[in-house]
């Protein structure tokens, strides 16, 4: 039942300041979408949540716990509370779909093969992919890979589900399908909190309970889809309308 709170988060790579004091609350039990242009540090933000990268300064809270400076060993327990769907699905291409989804169970539980199979089948069925179970990742389409990645991220029933640009590179029909899957997963998983990274405004307006716009290393706008539609914030307007001229330099 925890929110995620990011406070004054900063991250630079050499001289390049990517995050410059970012503040954001990701409310429990909802879909929050962070939107921003490519290269603004959206993936960097997600990776810091999972401890794959560490912030230079600022804090990350889960509920009341400050996880920012946990040692690696402790962080591993925190990661168990997260599931992440990577930008290009990041399925292991040396494994079948079945082995991919079974991976977290094999690594973290002592379930028998029969129980693993049951849970993998159920998880794949919930994303509509029961019949792809014995395929290799290179045999299935980009949209199917995304769904396998969702099944893999969900199999240990995480509290937080993170999506990194779930619909980038998919055709419009597949995009609608994945959006629907994110909404469906959120609505059918009690206790789940979803955080989606996107640069697709339309999809964001469809699925988000809360929208945060990332610009020049900070969150410059927060609100609901209706707030976004009605705001006259120049950066948000430019992004929504996809105009070339405005505060966002191309």
């Amino acid at each position, binding site marked *: 039942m925890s929110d995620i709170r990011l406070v004054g988060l900063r991250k630079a790579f050499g001289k390049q300041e990517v995050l410059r004091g970012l503040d954001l609350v990701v409310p429990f039990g909802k879909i929050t979408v962070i939107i921003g242009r490519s290269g603004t540090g959206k993936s960097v933000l997600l990776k810091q949540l999972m401890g794959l990268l560490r912030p230079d300064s600022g804090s990350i809270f889960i509920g009341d716990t400050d996880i920012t400076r946990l040692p690696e060993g402790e962080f591993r327990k925190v990661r168990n509370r997260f599931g992440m769907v990577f930008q290009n699905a990041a*399925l292991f291409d040396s494994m079948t779909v079945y082995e991919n989804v079974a991976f977290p169970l094999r690594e*973290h539980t002592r379930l028998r093969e029969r129980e693993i199979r049951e849970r993998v089948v159920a998880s794949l069925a919930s994303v509509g992919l029961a019949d792809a179970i014995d395929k290799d990742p290179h045999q299935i389409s980009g949209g199917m890979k995304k769904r396998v990645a969702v099944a893999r991220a969900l199999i240990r029933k995480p509290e937080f589900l993170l999506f990194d640009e779930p619909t980038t590179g998919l055709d419009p029909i597949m995009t609608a399908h994945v959006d629907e899957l994110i909404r469906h997963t959120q609505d059918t998983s009690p206790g789940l909190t979803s955080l989606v990274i996107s640069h697709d405004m339309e999809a964001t307006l469809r699925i988000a309970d809360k929208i945060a716009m990332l610009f020049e290393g900070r969150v410059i706008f927060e609100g609901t889809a209706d707030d976004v539609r009605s705001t006259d914030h120049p950066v948000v307007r430019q992004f929504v309308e996809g105009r070339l001229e405005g505060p966002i330099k191309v």
Partner: protein
Amino acid sequence: MNPIERLGAWVIASIEDLGGYTRFTARATWGMIRPPYRFRLLFKQMEFVGNQSLSIVMLTGAFTGMVFAVQSDFAFGRFGARGLLGSTVTLALTRELGPILTSLMVNGRVGSAMAAELGTMRVTEQIDAIESMSVDPVQYLASPRIAASILMVPILCAMFDLVGVIGVSYVATQMLGVNPGPFYNRMEWFVDPDDIWGGMMKSAIFGYILASVGCYRGFYARGGAEGVGQATTRAVVASGVAILVIDYFITLILAPMSVNRA
């Protein structure tokens, strides 16, 4: 930057790189010792190392033995010492050529494959995915590969020795007309099991180096397909050089001991 600054930057980068390599290899080595033990991955990697390299190692061994027989026959013939041919060539094969050539061949096939595979996993975020599922990616990916290489390169080296000696014997006794009696006699007399064991020990060290360098380069590859290609090339070159240099120092350290033995 002037040349001196550039040299300084290069030295600092090299030292940082060596530090990174050392930390990575220490972590991977510790990963072999501590649980969880993933025997399935270990056996899969052992099979991979063996399958990739067995035929090329045996081919190299056979031709090295054969060409060495011809060259040595030429040299020994001048001193009328052809009877020493078998023992000399066998010593050279088991002590030096076996470990070195086996490791360089395995490096070309397996070290490069490890760098390319881990590099691809890095740039497609598969390594991040492993870590995001609370699994230590160094232990999961690098430890079994390095362990498999430590175990398999000596076995491949022994195969090289065996085929090499068969090659020498065949060329010497069947083609060059060396008298088989003294040939085998001297060979048995001069070549000690310790020579073979010593060579295998060295190959274990070389296996450790080529796999850890390959994994390290792949693990930290950056920047798409091009970055993976670069990581692969750098891994093969660095391990190749390291194997030759380290071989020199091992030989230097071990040489006095084998003199005492004789």
